[in-house]
């Protein structure tokens, strides 16, 4: 629909030798972590469970108070400011959305604007706008309660609520952990579409490396005690794992990496004939024969594909109706080729229909395109000079990104020496 400007609305985040030491524990949960998160990018925290990635995330909005170090957002030190005020400026999404079951969808989304004292009609307009953004029809979903929504829809509302007051930063704690794989793929695609519109700074915790590769501009791989093992682009983490730990964590066969790295919008899509409900099937068939394509795609009013028709199906039809084919293989242009291939295999089809922002039809993709893309794209790993800074002070310097260490003037500090205000 609307192509909004590509201006970055996100803020940069800097964790400056941040430490979390729980009383009574010898090893800090997070020890002297320095991490730069560039404005407008998606940074994925991955690592085994209990490695401190969630603790690190929650220290950014100070749900967990750091015991040492500074957190700087957009140049402003937020370590000492009022925690509630800070959190109202940072979106927060958890698994299954964390919606309040006793409030309607609209009331859930309106919470932060209400706390910030927005006017009623401004809030109502914002709620509808956000529901549109997360692909839920406001007229249908506004007054529903969370229990009347599916898991995926609840998650969408959770994202809408986090975006309500237009915060520059969005923190997501394993947001897609509780939904089935197909819904997860959709939600991931949608998040990327939303991000291409809003350009926030997103920090997401996940334990799924494929998710990290798919969504992340940068991936931070953590080991126990929030030791930052590698902080780099997905391509380079895959191509040059920093050590055996990262290698093991990446897991799957190297040959199929390209499938996860390349997105549908990076390959050539095929055009095809489109039709609207109400057209004569014979007209569409003659256009299709003139074009040489094998499918015609039927679109709804908002140019979203609802079904596709073969020549044979067309020749049997009189008039094109608005039946929705739920089983049509559908991928977003933000999907990885891995997702696209998966979708095709599941529906036993050689082609899949591709949609862009807000589910608008983009074209078709087929198996040959994917195979060509794999064979073409081989040397994709560029040099690492633009990676943001990330290191643990005084901790295994050999594992940090080398040039990042060089760019960081800070001398190594002992994380255990960090003062403990509590």
């Amino acid at each position, binding site marked *: 629909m609307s192509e909004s400007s590509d201006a970055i609305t996100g803020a940069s985040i800097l964790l400056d030798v941040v430490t979390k030491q729980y009383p009574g524990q010898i090893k800090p949960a997070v020890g002297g972590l320095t991490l730069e998160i560039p404005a407008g990018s998606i940074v994925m925290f991955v690592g085994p469970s209990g490695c401190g990635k969630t603790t690190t995330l929650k220290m950014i909005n100070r*749900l967990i108070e750091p015991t040492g170090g500074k957190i700087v957002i957009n140049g402003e030190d937020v370590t000492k400011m009022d925690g509630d005020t800070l*959190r109202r400026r940072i979106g*927060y999404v958890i698994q299954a959305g*964390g*919606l309040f079951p006793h409030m309607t969808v609209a009331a859930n989304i309106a919470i932060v604007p209400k*706390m910030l004292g927005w006017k009623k009609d401004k809030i109502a307009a914002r709620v509808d706008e956000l529901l549109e953004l997360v692909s839920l029809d406001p007229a249908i979903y506004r007054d529903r309660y969370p*229990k009347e929504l599916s898991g995926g829809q609840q998650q969408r509302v959770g994202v809408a609520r986090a975006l309500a007051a237009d915060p520059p930063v969005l923190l997501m704690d394993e947001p897609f952990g509780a939904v089935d794989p197909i819904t997860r793929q959709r939600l991931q695609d949608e998040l990327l579409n939303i991000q291409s519109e809003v350009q926030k700074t997103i920090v997401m915790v996940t334990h799924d490396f494929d998710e990290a590769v798919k969504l992340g501009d940068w991936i931070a791989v953590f080991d126990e005690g929030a030791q930052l093992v590698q902080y780099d682009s997905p391509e380079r983490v895959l191509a040059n794992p920093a050590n055996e730990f990262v290698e093991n964590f990446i897991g799957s066969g190297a040959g199929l990496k390209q499938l996860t790295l390349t997105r549908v919008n990076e390959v050539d899509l095929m055009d095809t004939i489109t039709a609207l409900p109400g057209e004569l099937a014979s007209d569409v068939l003659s256009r299709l024969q003139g074009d040489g394509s094998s499918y015609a795609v039927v679109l709804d009013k908002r140019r979203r594909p609802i079904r596709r028709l073969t020549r044979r199906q067309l020749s049997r039809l009189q008039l094109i109706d608005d039946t929705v084919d739920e089983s049509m293989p559908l991928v977003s242009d933000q999907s990885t080729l891995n997702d696209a291939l998966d979708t095709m295999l599941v529906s036993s089809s050689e082609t899949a229909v591709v949609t862009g922002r807000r589910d608008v039809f983009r074209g078709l993709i087929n198996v040959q395109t994917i195979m060509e893309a794999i064979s073409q794209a081989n040397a994709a790993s560029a040099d690492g000079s633009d990676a943001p800074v990330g290191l643990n002070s005084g901790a295994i310097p050999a594992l940090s990104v080398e040039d990042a260490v060089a760019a960081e003037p800070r001398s190594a500090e002992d994380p255990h020496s960090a003062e403990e205000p509590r």
Partner: protein
Amino acid sequence: MFEFIGERIRQILFASWQHFSLVAQCLILATVIAVVIAALVYRNKSLSSLANGVSAIGLTIPSFAAIGLLIAPFGFGVTPAVIVVSFFAALPIIRNAIVGLAGISPSVVESARGIGMSRMRTLATVELPMAWPVILSGIRVSAQMVMGVAAIAAYALGPGLGGFIFSGLSRLGGAKAFDSVLVGVIGVVILAFILDLILLGIGRLTTPRGIRV
């Protein structure tokens, strides 16, 4: 019986109203006290079990003894009645309020805090509304129980239908003594029924559709 009622209808209605009013006001007071106590202890496991223990032991105290003991410091009349009725009313509500508040999924509370709600706001707008159905069922249990307790308050010359019961019992065998007791007892049962209906209605009106079962 009917003759007895006919002769004293104004007196009976007045006593019934007094009884009902005593119970209703004490219930409100008890709910406030119980919710405050529950809100203070529910985050802490040992404090919660302490509160639950006190509530369990409190319920075993015979109400008749409790009111008798309170006559000494507070004298006769309304004061000991209010104290005893509120005390007994608060006990089941405390238990339910703790259960209700502690039963809220931590992820809901975390997301409330995560989007910038203060502790107080989280409690007032998220936790209490979500625990409300459980708290209200505690209030209903309380209401039934203290209807009877309030009758005993008449021993300390408190207001209500208990007066008919005690005066009847004290001259049992005498003229219309049995009628007097019966009027008191039936009156209490009817009032309890009415109050329960009212609480049921309040529950319907105050429970959001999203958490209705």
